[in-house]
């Protein structure tokens, strides 16, 4: 097990290095001189020169990369060019927010998507299956940001039921936290629910055709037991793996939703940073999401490993 994780990590390292290269060079290609943005409206030449000097903006790009990566390796993610806050601190501030959002969205997605997928697989070809599929496809087809805007209009502006934006830590005010998060989590959750539903359905369809399900029926087991115990237990493997991967995507995928609901998470941080050319933040956050994503991939693999007796007993 440990050696498996170690091997998996060994593969992750070149990936992370490549991510760092992508991230760094990509945003160095971004047009616009960050010094100009940072110098303020007056753009005092002395200040400009100083900023360029301070952030190594006038040095060759490879040198800049070297500065950045070596600082990064020492745990120094730099400071935000815009707010002077350490990037690590920003990340520490935002990560729990995004994780909370992702967890809630995942939860919503799972309680909708998995049962719907099971039912539609069991009732394949019936109206229920058809309806579930259409709803799922609709969930996938609605642009997230539009759904968000519409919900804000309806639920917050017209009905006044939920706050339109904002964030509260669940440890400070759980009720308020839930209130502010439920809509964005729902918006994110719908698309995920659709994805989960479709995967659950196809996994279940495959498994319900499997010989061992027929064996279970041949034992006279109740259909409920056949479906929920024998079939679903095996469908769980791809579903859990997929969920871990989706969770990894969520960490980075909430970009527009956070923007619309003004949720101070990773997505908002990174979009704002791109637009204000806050290099250190872009680099730090993308690295962080990429590592998070890779980590979730790893967790998906480990879960696959743990849930699959074939893998487990192979050791």
């Amino acid at each position: 097990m440990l050696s498996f994780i170690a091997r998996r990590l060994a593969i992750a390292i070149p990936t992370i290095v490549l991510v760092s290269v992508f991230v760094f060079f990509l945003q160095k290609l971004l047009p616009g001189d960050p010094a100009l943005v940072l110098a303020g409206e007056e753009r005092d030449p002395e200040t400009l020169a100083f900023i360029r000097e301070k952030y190594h903006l006038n040095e060759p790009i490879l040198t800049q990369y070297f500065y950045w990566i070596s600082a990064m390796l020492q745990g120094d993610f730099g400071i935000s060019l815009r707010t002077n806050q350490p990037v690590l601190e920003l990340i520490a501030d935002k990560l729990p927010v995004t994780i909370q959002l992702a967890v809630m969205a995942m939860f919503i997605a799972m309680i909708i998507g998995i049962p719907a997928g099971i039912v539609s697989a069991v009732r394949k070809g019936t109206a229920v299956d058809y309806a579930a599929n259409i709803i799922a496809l609709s969930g996938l087809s609605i642009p997230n940001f539009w759904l968000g805007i519409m919900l804000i209009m309806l639920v917050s502006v017209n009905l006044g039921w939920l706050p339109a934006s904002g964030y509260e830590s669940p440890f400070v005010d759980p009720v308020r936290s839930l209130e502010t998060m439920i809509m964005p989590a729902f918006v994110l959750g719908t698309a995920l629910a659709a994805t989960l539903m479709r995967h659950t359905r196809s996994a279940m369809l495959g498994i319900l055709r499997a010989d061992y399900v027929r064996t279970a029926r041949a034992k006279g087991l109740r259909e409920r037991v056949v479906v929920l115990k024998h079939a679903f237990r095996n469908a769980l493997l791809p579903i859990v793996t997929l969920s871990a991967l989706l969770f990894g995507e969520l960490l980075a995928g909430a970009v527009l939703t956070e923007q619309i609901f003004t949720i101070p998470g990773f997505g908002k941080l990174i979009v704002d940073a791109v637009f204000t050319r806050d290099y250190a933040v872009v680099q730090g956050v993308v690295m962080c999401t990429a590592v998070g994503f890779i980590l979730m991939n790893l967790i998906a693999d480990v879960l696959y490993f743990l849930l699959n007796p074939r893998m487990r007993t192979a050791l």
Partner: protein
Amino acid sequence: MSVAGDIPAAGSKEQPRSGNRAWNKLKANKSAFVGFLLVVFFISIAALAPLLPIADPTATSWGAIRNAPSAAHWLGTDELGRDILSRMIWGAQASLLAGVVSVLIAVSVGVPFGLISGYFGGWIDQIISRATDALLATPFLILAIALAAFLGPSLTNAMIAIGLSAMPIFIRLTRGEVLAVKTEDYVEGAHAIGLPTPIILVRYILPNVFAPILVQATLTIATAIIAEASLSFLGLGQQPPAPSWGSMLNVAKNFMTQAPWMAMWPGIAIFLVVLGFNLLGDGLRDALDPRET
């Protein structure tokens, strides 16, 4: 002499070709057909936009700003008094073009890499795979935003940005499919008759990984349309005064209370066309799946 014993008795009745068969299956699949109709509908209005008897999508009218839907303007007018219906119709061009072109870019760059990576394996596979992992680990929209910002806001650049961001999906998909197809007997058979590698790649591997790529491409068009809308929504896509659904939404969100219809129509249109591509993609998946008969 062993004679053709097992020729079908009613040999005169020609069986349909594989392409026809897929098409027939697609037609038989109601939801896929609905998707097909939706896609055809939007493609035709986009293509026919110049011929339709509609207002100039950029003609402003200071006297008719943000008018609610009426007989004169079926879908209302926007913040500059332009007819939303005609902007919707012309905007379909941008959305569809963005969806299709960006996927073409993704496919034409991603598939060759995937082919090479999957077929040859070894260090080249390692390099391509790690780079693909790295690209996949970078959030799609962030990648697209950064690329779009780098290239400068325009529809073309948004398409390139989305295309390049969607590329790793195709690398990975193609690679996986190639790995599966590579071990098929008929590929071994191609080796057995002594075919050179390029021919094996082009005649044996590529056609047999084509179906899943086509399905994925159709589904990715849906994603790309949303991505274009998202980029336009952030101001990085289609540039004014030319219309696109995403940029219409971008403006509309400022007038949510005063002119909700401005946000309704583009949202619904995006939803429908994306739904169309998703339905079609699903249908294609079933139709092209040799197992489902």
